[in-house]
């Protein structure tokens, strides 16, 4: 169970949001919406522990994430704006490294299945990521979610640069994650195609 208590944050000298209190229960998705520049990315980075809030706390199972540190990082998978993959390595190599560093299963077969699940055919598995399109690179990044066994997913605009098919794969995968009791926080512009009883919306305001 995951909650923020009276969270407020700023970027440089600009106040982004204040007094945000929200609880995310297992099996639910929190959709963070707002215009560009409203602080969605900063909010997500605070949830990751990468950014410190001005005020307020973030609690995981009732404990402050600042105290939990690595115990908390082991619970989350973060897909940010930047892909976090190396252009010089192939998708398979990239995914193997990510999985290994996350403590997940990283054998070749499993990795290739994950890439296929996100819509990348075998023909691109062994090409350097450099030659793939933006959308394909994004899929390689998202493929981590098919290998992750962690309960909390923090996704920053995951549907950007995805076509309809990939959006569908991702949505279905999120749904199965939620049905296993996982939690997802998504910063997004788009509507997510999931049953309304498992989505909460949060609009960030100053």
């Amino acid at each position: 169970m995951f909650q923020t208590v009276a969270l407020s944050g700023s970027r440089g000298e600009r106040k982004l949001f204040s007094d945000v209190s929200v609880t995310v229960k297992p099996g639910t998705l929190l959709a963070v919406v707002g215009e560009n520049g409203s602080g969605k990315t900063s909010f997500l980075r605070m949830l990751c522990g990468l950014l410190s809030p001005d005020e307020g706390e973030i609690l995981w199972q009732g404990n402050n994430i600042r105290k939990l540190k690595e115990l908390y990082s082991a619970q989350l998978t973060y897909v940010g704006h930047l892909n976090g993959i190396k252009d010089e390595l192939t998708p398979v190599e990239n995914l193997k490294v990510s999985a290994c560093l996350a403590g997940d299963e990283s054998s070749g077969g499993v990795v290739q299945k994950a890439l296929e699940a996100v819509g990348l055919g075998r023909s691109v598995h062994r090409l350097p990521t450099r030659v793939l399109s933006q959308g394909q690179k994004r899929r390689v990044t998202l493929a981590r979610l098919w290998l992750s066994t962690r309960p909390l997913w923090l996704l920053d605009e995951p549907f950007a640069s995805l076509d309809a098919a990939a959006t569908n794969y991702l949505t279905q995968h999120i749904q199965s994650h939620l049905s296993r009791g996982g939690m997802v926080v998504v910063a997004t512009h788009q509507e997510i195609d999931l049953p309304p009883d498992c989505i909460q919306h949060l609009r960030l305001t100053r």
Partner: protein
Amino acid sequence: MSATGINWFKYSSPQAFYPLAGRMIPWFAAVAVGVIAGGLYVGFFIAPTDVTQGDAYRIIFVHVPAAWMSMFLYVIMAIWAGIGLGLNARLSFMMAQAIAPTGAMFTFLALFTGSMWGKPTWGAWWVWDARLTSELILLFQYIGIMLLRSSIDDLRRADRASAVLALVGVINVPIIYFSVRWWNTLHQGASVTITAAPTMAGTMVTAMLVMMFGFWMYSFAVTLARMRCVIVERERQPSWGKPASIPDVAEAR
């Protein structure tokens, strides 16, 4: 906090500190001017002429206190930096920011006066004396901190990065001293020490201590004045919707 004691914590916010600093500056400035003038008078006119070095040695009354100040101020700046990082206190970071230029100035003064001392004593404008070389490296460290701060646009990152650098540098200061002295003794032929002080007569010691005190007062005055500038600068663009918290700035706007 006792009922009669001063509650120092109330001054830990920039808004409260600003007027306090404003009241203190004139006092420190006045004392500084008086003491430094007095110290220079004693040093330049009253202290006896040195047997070996003649009157040229008198630069010591500026050189040595300046060198001590440069080191003390670095350590104090590092302490404020550490407090800022530990307690996440804005004022501490601002204090460290305000001290750096004064520390750099004293370092430069020490180098400059050391050079002036070297010319008549050793015939050269610069000698690779252990202490002078260490002062030079200290100057580089000061400049590095100031440059790092000015290269970072985001205020929070600038504060914290220069604080980390100050702390890393303060650990380096004793190491530099040790290694440069080592280096000096390694190269036997070139070992020159212009900072071997002449045997000190009583008045000489007095004059140096007086100058030290004067430099301290100067540092207080200048640092507090700079703090006020830093506070006003940071208030220039307050968080949206919040009025300026310092009356002078609010009026100006």
